[in-house]
């Protein structure tokens, strides 16, 4: 594709908008740390449309710029760790598993949260943060399934 870099740049822009936008969406549950992970939609689309390398680069740039725009340096550490974990998970599952895009979305969300919990335990030096993870696992199911499903919808339209 001739204008590949243009499209990828556009994808980064869309992902940043989604990342910033979702922080304004209140999660209607009394749970800690609930985020939908809308930016992962873009990562999944780029992975399937362009490839693994492109997905990693788009996710990395999105995580860094998105946090700089809305958040800060601390947010960036979590955003990059979560983004990288989830995109690598998606790449491996897309290549080597029989999960549909919905399963890939769920597993990506699970790994995204796991990465953030691990980083938090290390940075804040507090093992009790791990008690958040089971709740986050349950939140990952609808959120991950939604991102996977939406990615599939968009990919079907792009064909």
């Amino acid at each position, binding site marked *: 594709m001739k204008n590949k870099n243009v499209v990828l740049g556009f994808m980064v822009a869309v992902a940043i908008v989604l990342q910033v936008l979702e922080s304004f969406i209140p999660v209607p549950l009394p749970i*800690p740390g609930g985020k939908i992970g809308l930016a992962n939609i873009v990562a999944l689309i780029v992975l399937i449309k362009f490839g693994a390398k492109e997905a990693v680069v788009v996710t990395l740039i999105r995580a860094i710029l998105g946090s700089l725009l809305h958040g800060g340096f601390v947010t960036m550490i979590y955003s990059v760790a979560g983004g990288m974990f989830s995109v690598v998970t998606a790449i491996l599952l897309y290549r080597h598993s029989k999960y549909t895009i919905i399963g890939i979305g769920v597993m990506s969300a699970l790994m995204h949260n796991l990465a953030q919990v691990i980083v938090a335990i290390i940075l804040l*030096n*507090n093992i009790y943060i791990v008690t958040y993870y089971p709740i986050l696992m349950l939140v990952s199911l609808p959120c991950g399934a939604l991102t996977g499903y939406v990615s599939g919808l968009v990919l079907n339209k792009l064909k």
Partner: protein
Amino acid sequence: MALRVNKHDIILIVFTVIIAVLFMVLFNLYLYKGVATGVEIHYDGKLLESYSFDKLPKEKTLEINTDIGYNIINICNNKVSVTNSSCNDKVCNGFYISKPNQVIVCLPNKLVIKLVGASEVDSISY
């Protein structure tokens, strides 16, 4: 592509629910045991302040100011919640903890609010 879950997806989802519920039950049975008697506020991995509930009034609002920002902590009937914070996402706002070893984490402000049980408070409220 077909947008329907397959057998593998279902197994993943069921497995996730089982593991999550199992750990929640285990935490409730073994980690959140007893009655909370105090609260510890950790900042950037270090203990910043600690309070024993019996030395506090029934309802108290604490303001934690650090280099990064602020968190407003409400303590009411031995239940602790964060009511406001300077960060953008505010995911730590709006729910409360009431059992020992439960935590509220504010990632952007590097804050961990942890409840402690009877035996632990004695050693920290010197």
